[in-house]
């Protein structure tokens, strides 16, 4: 853009982009220049026509929007909890899983742990919980369970898994007895 020809400033003047000094200088030029007057008139006319046409165009239907930021709770706070909240919740879940797995809060598991400790239990009380003693055969020999069974014995498992484990314990001597009878 060069300021040597004031006629080139007509659009900048129309868009109000000239400084006050430039605008006053152009207004002095405008009073004498018919071409600039015509250009200015055409610019005003085309802008007015565009605005008029768009203000009278048939618009798409917009469903009623009844939303304001004060009435609707923020989705950000609802759907995204803070990181410290997630970490705290995860820690609580881990601790709960640890306690349950180790029988700290499960009384049934606590009894099962105490079955080998005879001093802590009444000797007259019949044992309701199966133990490794159930795997003793009729001829008095201790039937040591296989390695994988022993491994599971020392593993903290859920009650369901324990039930299935003792089912294995009961079955192994029976199978061995039936084999010895056949022999």
């Amino acid at each position, binding site marked *: 853009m060069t300021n040597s020809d004031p006629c080139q400033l007509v*659009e*900048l003047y129309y*868009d*109000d*982009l000239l400084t006050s000094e430039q605008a006053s200088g152009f207004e002095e030029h405008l009073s004498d220049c018919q071409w600039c007057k015509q250009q200015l008139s*055409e*610019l005003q*006319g*085309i*802008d*007015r*026509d*565009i*605005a*008029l*046409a*768009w*203000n*009278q*165009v*048939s*618009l*798409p*239907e*917009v*469903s*009623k*929007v*009844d*939303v*304001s*930021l*004060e009435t*609707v709770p*923020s*989705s*950000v*706070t609802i759907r995204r909890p803070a990181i410290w909240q997630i970490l705290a919740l995860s820690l609580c879940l881990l601790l709960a899983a640890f306690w349950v797995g180790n029988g700290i809060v499960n009384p049934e598991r606590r009894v099962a742990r105490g079955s080998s400790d005879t001093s802590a239990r009444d000797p007259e009380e019949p044992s309701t919980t199966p133990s490794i003693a159930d795997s003793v055969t009729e001829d008095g020999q201790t039937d040591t369970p296989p390695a994988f069974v022993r491994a599971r014995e020392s593993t903290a498992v859920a009650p369901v898994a324990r039930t299935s484990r003792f089912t294995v314990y009961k079955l192994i001597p029976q199978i061995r007895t039936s084999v010895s009878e056949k022999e």
Partner: protein
Amino acid sequence: MKVDFEKHSQALARFALSLTGRHEFAEDLVQETLLRAIRHRGNGETVIQNPKSWLFTIAVNCWRDQCRRQKRMPATEPLHLVDEAVAATGNTNQTPREHLETVLTTFQELPQRQREVLYLRTVEGFSISEVAEMLGITEGNTKTTLSIARKKLRERCARVGAGEAGR
């Protein structure tokens, strides 16, 4: 912060129509714009100086995303004026209604960026700097684009008007 979406919905629908050139696309664009505006309003502590330009910026970005997904710009359809549309224009070769329809048709034939700049400046009355900020372009680019768009529109309207007069 409170944004009155109802207040700006008509202007937003009109702008969406100018962007898309089709009524069905404009409806979808308005809905998506409002959804995005509600989603991105933050926790309510964000200060929005000009809600109208904020909504328009979201509409522009939504439309660009849609075009990018479809990998092409959808074709526009001829727009129609409302039945009671009248205007006192300076064009003597056509009736006012015909002249406005010519302006609309010619406007729709402009490239996308020129349509955006011309609409925001002339219809909505945003300043050059506001238009540049909304469209993510420089002020110099905005001025040049606006000047070219006006020139094209004037020339094409004059050509159509001369053709109508010659018949």
